[in-house]
């Protein structure tokens, strides 16, 4: 286990709210001082636009921004020309789908394969693409123990499959998916494999080479980075032929009155002034997480999750809706308390300074598959301890006594 008392000192929020049991990192995580300082430095010491000015401040800002790209590349075992900064997962997912639509030879009747556990940000752009181009969208279902049904995946992925888009970890179930296995199926089918890593990144070491994916995206704010910054990774060969779908300044080679030629580098996907401070803050967050060690964080979250699972299993009236094996769970425990709506559970928790999420978690098709309308979700990260879980348990008991 990590020493959470020490770790909490790195996060100013716990100085402002010492009693806070923050169990909503799957929604957005907290920010370490290191990241805040890095962004502050940009704004106070060298703020300027990048890739434009010939003066010193602009050169410093450009260097820092490009260093952030290199940090991200190392973090993912990628190369810096494979890293595109975006505003987050949602933009990455949308612009990637538009770009693929312009780049791939898609024909009516071609297929997209995704899963029933996707976040709306990954799912809806695929739905829209399917409806624009007459493609068939298929969903890999769940097994009884809320794992992906890989046997069904094998049946669903065919030679007609052009795109496979799958989350690395479910934001509701915590389930960590076997991307390598899907990557093999993608290769056999000749399909492009997209991975939504929003819930997994910063929780475990990730190597895009090992995963064998073509594209991968995530948001910075779920991994101790600031809001408004994210990354789209694209394998070099794929990115080279990918057409841009957002247009504006900084992404062009030449523009005349009616046409434009686009940059040959990743700049092609970074139209307009980017979130410079955000990229710098995200790189600082990675530096912070790397100092603690991604494997250490993974093991710590696993221990807290294991404790939470065992505690919640022992409470009568609590039903779990998440991966029951902590080794296959990215630190998310979703549940229902019998006879009490998740909104009421969350409200009673909040009175005990326990922050959780309640609702459909932007995964309505999954809610339908589970046969529920809403769930309470507790999610764990490096600053959470078993004491936080104890507060959660107390909250459940309090809710049960109020509603008894």
């Amino acid at each position, binding site marked *: 286990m990590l020493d959470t008392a020490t770790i909490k000192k790195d996060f100013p929020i716990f100085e402002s709210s010492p009693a806070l049991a923050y169990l909503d990192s799957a929604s957005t995580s907290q920010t370490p001082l290191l990241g805040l300082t890095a962004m502050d430095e940009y704004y106070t010491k060298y703020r300027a636009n990048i890739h434009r000015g010939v003066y010193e401040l602009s050169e410093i800002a450009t260097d820092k921004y490009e260093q952030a790209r290199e940090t991200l590349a190392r973090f993912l075992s990628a190369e810096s020309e494979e890293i595109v900064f975006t505003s987050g997962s949602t933009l990455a997912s949308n612009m990637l789908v538009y770009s693929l639509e312009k780049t791939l030879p898609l024909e009516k009747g071609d297929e997209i394969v995704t899963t029933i556990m996707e976040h709306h940000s990954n799912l809806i752009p695929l739905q829209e693409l399917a409806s624009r181009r007459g493609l068939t969208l298929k969903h890999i279902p769940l097994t009884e123990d809320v794992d992906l049904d890989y046997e069904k995946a094998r049946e669903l992925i065919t030679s007609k499959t052009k795109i496979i888009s799958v989350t690395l970890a479910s934001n509701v179930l915590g389930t960590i998916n076997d991307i390598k296995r899907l990557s093999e199926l993608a290769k056999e089918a000749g399909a492009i494999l997209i991975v939504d890593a929003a819930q997994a990144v910063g929780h475990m070491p990730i190597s895009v080479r090992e995963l064998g994916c073509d594209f991968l995206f995530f948001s910075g704010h779920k991994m101790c980075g600031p809001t408004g910054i994210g990354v789209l990774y694209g394998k070099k060969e794929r990115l080279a032929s990918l057409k841009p779908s957002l247009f504006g300044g900084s992404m062009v080679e030449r523009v005349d009155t009616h046409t434009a030629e686009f940059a040959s580098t990743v700049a092609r996907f970074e139209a307009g002034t980017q979130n410079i401070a955000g990229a710098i803050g995200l790189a600082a967050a990675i530096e912070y997480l790397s100092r603690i060690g991604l494997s250490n964080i993974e093991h710590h979250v696993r221990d807290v999750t294991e404790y939470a699972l065992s505690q919640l299993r022992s409470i009568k009236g609590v039903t779990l809706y998440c991966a029951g094996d902590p080794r296959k769970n990215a630190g998310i425990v979703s549940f229902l308390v019998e006879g009490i709506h998740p909104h009421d559970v969350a409200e009673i928790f909040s009175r005990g300074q326990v922050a959780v999420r309640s609702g459909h978690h932007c995964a309505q098709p999954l809610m339908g598959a589970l046969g529920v309308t*809403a769930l309470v979700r507790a999610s764990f990260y490096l600053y959470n301890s078993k004491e936080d879980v104890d507060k959660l348990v107390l909250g459940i008991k309090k809710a049960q006594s109020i509603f008894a």
Partner: protein
Amino acid sequence: MDEELYKQNILDHYKHPHGKGVLVDFDIKERGRNASCGDDLTLYIKFDQEHKVRDVAFEGEGCAISIAAASMLTETIKGKTAKELALISPGDIYNMLGIPISPGRVNCALLAYKALNDSIKTME
């Protein structure tokens, strides 16, 4: 604080809601949904010959606040004319609930009210 939000009155309405059910013969059937939490409720109203609410019912799922508010609303609108229904405001709902409603729970408190309000607009 718990006593304030989940006082007995609210819990009683939640556990034994008034007007829970469906009307087969209705003049108004309006669905209300809370996009953030998935709460889903349908309100039914039947007017009598004097255009006053003769019968009202709701069905659906929701949290204690939304169900209690719907239950209280069904009690209060009986005998009212459509014009009188149009005069009901969110403030009336908060007064009926009699508890402080935080910004995060406004949509819960007003779920049934919004269905009522939408249905009256379509009538006009």
